[in-house]
């Protein structure tokens, strides 16, 4: 009897094991050829590091876009599954996150800084993962150097060229330019190209670069160096907070200098941090349309935020930037699905290269972004704004170098 009972229990156990094994197998097949399977995207974000002041809204914008798109049914029925983690602007942490995302089976990556985008450049090429980031360094736009990187807006170097063209005109052809830059690959990215541009165009501009020491309470020392250079223009390639400090110091010292902020400091955060007074009259090179410029693309954002009980007026250019970059990637994914292909890295890359102009509804540069197999520079046009009465006022739309 006991033996019988034992064998019954054993048989039941074996049966249930066997059934559960079958169940697993059946479940896997039962998914039905990936219909509606989520599309995984890895996001490497700086929320608390050296560039966290603009990195945080950029990340929020990106996640908001994904939320909006998913609420709208996703891309062709596929939800976007975003894995987003803070790497605090440290390259080794970015590499670890990257490897984790690859292991988790993402099809594309949204990165952030120049140093880490450059460090991951060869890896994304090897792993065939399209990579967009908050870095617009020139090397990332060249498919020969970085075959899987895409730069959706004009590169830092293009922005610098636009800035120098403007300075040349504003100064009547003879000005002194001091370039204050973040002490990192991000900061140094456009410096040499700017110098080359001055020579190429034959501008009679003095040009000198200064690294901005991190964590400085003020930049009076740097400004006095610029003053002895005779600089009337200070081009800043840094994030908003330190650039705002420079603007404050210029005002406090009573210096006659005009700040020209590129991308990451050319935003509302620069104006609010410096104060409308100290920011007054400074120039902002910003490829991503700030909310005040009221482009058609802002309407979607406004409607989404209103649903959430928020207002678009509280969001700056960096937020819009995150939203727009994610939008470009999503449009590429939509193209892959439209073509009836499976969403993979190589398929997304090909879609982005061949799909022609991508409409950003005025949010990036002159509104369209276009990649090709020869160039991953999405756009060369940028808006030029001036800080007037605490607002970003458009001086020129779609300026090109």
């Amino acid at each position: 009897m006991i033996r019988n009972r034992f064998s019954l229990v054993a048989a039941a156990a074996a049966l249930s094991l066997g059934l559960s094994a079958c169940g697993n197998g059946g479940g896997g097949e039962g998914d039905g050829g990936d219909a509606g399977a989520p599309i995984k995207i890895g996001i490497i974000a700086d929320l608390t590091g050296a560039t966290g002041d603009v990195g945080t809204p950029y990340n929020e914008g990106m996640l908001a876009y994904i939320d909006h798109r998913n609420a709208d049914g996703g891309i062709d029925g596929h939800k976007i599954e975003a894995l987003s983690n803070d790497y605090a602007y440290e390259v080794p942490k970015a590499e670890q996150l990257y490897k984790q995302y690859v292991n988790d089976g993402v099809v594309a990556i949204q990165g952030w800084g120049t140093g880490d985008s450059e460090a991951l450049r060869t890896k994304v090429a090897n792993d065939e993962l399209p990579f967009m980031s908050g870095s617009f360094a020139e090397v990332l736009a060249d498919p020969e150097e970085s075959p899987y990187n895409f730069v959706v807006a004009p590169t830092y170097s293009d922005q610098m060229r636009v800035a120098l063209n403007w300075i040349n005109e504003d100064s009547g052809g003879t000005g002194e330019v001091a370039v204050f830059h973040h002490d990192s690959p991000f900061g140094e990215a456009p410096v040499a190209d700017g110098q080359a541009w001055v020579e190429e165009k034959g501008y009679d501009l003095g040009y000198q670069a200064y690294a901005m020491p991190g964590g400085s309470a003020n930049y009076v020392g740097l400004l006095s160096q610029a003053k002895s250079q005779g600089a009337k223009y200070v081009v800043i390639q840094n994030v908003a907070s330190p650039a705002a400090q420079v603007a404050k110091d210029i005002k406090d010292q009573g210096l006659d200098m005009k700040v020209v902020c590129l991308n990451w400091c050319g935003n509302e955060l620069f104006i609010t941090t410096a104060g409308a007074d100290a920011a007054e009259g400074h120039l902002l090179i910003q490829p991503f349309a700030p909310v005040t410029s009221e482009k058609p693309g802002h309407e979607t954002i406004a409607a989404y935020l209103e649903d959430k009980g928020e207002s678009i007026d509280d969001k700056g250019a960096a937020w819009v930037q995150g939203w727009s970059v994610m939008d470009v990637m999503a449009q590429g994914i939509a193209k892959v699905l439209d073509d009836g292909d499976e969403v993979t890295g190589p398929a997304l890359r090909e879609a982005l290269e061949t799909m022609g102009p991508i409409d950003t509804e005025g949010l990036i540069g002159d509104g369209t972004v276009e990649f090709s197999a020869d160039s991953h520079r999405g756009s060369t046009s940028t808006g030029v704004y001036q800080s007037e009465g605490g607002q970003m006022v458009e001086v020129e739309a779609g300026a090109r170098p």
Partner: protein
Amino acid sequence: MAATATGIHHRSYTSELRLRATKAEYFRLGLTLALLVVVPFVLDNYWLSIVNTILIAVIGAVGLNILVGYTGQISLGQGGFLAVGAYTSAILTERYGVPVLLSVVAAVVATAAIGIFFGLPGLRLKGLYLAIATLASQVIIEFVVRRDPGGFLTEGAGYIDVARLNILGWQVERSTFEQQWYLILAIITVLAVVAARNLFRTGLGRSFMAVRDQDIAAEAIGVNLTRAKLTAFAVSSGYVGLAGALIAHYTEIVSWERFTLDVSITYLAMIIVGGLGSIAGAVYGAIFMSLLPVLIRTAAQQWGDAVPVLKDQLPAVQNALFGAVIIAFLIFEPRGLARLWQRAKDYVRYWPFRY
């Protein structure tokens, strides 16, 4: 003082000099080797990549412990020496076409030479003064690789791309990248650890320890202080240079951002937590300090929704725990993980007696 194994009788000097005497020790050695063999088969690529970075950190930590733990010199220049190794190997391979094996050897030699140079103040300075002098080496080397005067190092690009590892025509494959690197790194690390372990059974290694314990007495018994200190700097930097060269070829890109003062501090933390003056301690410390941030991040991803601060302030939490761990070890067990492990073993061996 660690309890010595009672009941073990040696019949010859050779037997007494053996690294391992008891069966338990051989058993643990076998277990470790088995673990090393099994690891690439059970871990996925992500965790294997973490193991690979740990293996490199082990080499660096062992190198630093030779200098700090065994010779009593202090070095805050670890990040800089790693950079010397990485840049030397990368430049030789990429620009001058030197085979990887030779360029790695050259990196070890070059870093040892730079180590000797920056070790010179150690002949006159001790303790805090030496710490600040070696801090200068970190600052100077970091300044050079960061500013790259004349564009010699990176030819103006700011970084050096390193081609996929290719040894005598055999190239690491993309699909099994982590597995193949694991094999290479595991072999090199085991060799490096065994070499370091044996170093302290030689006259040279003992002279290092004599310098650490009491340099005047060491000199009185015939230790050449100058030679001992500079050799310690050379050997230690050589190890660090090897780790740097491996970082260059493993990560396939060299840029200054990876070799900052933070790295020097992390390595010091590794040997403090692991145990100063213990090769095993350096290994434990490297494993522990490399895994800590990864585990915290994994925890944050698991429980981030329940404890939002963990996820929102992750890097801050990681830094805070990093500091807390060092403080805890300095208070509760200054001799680190190695000593904790020793005590655990003693407890088992002498149970039910306390000693």
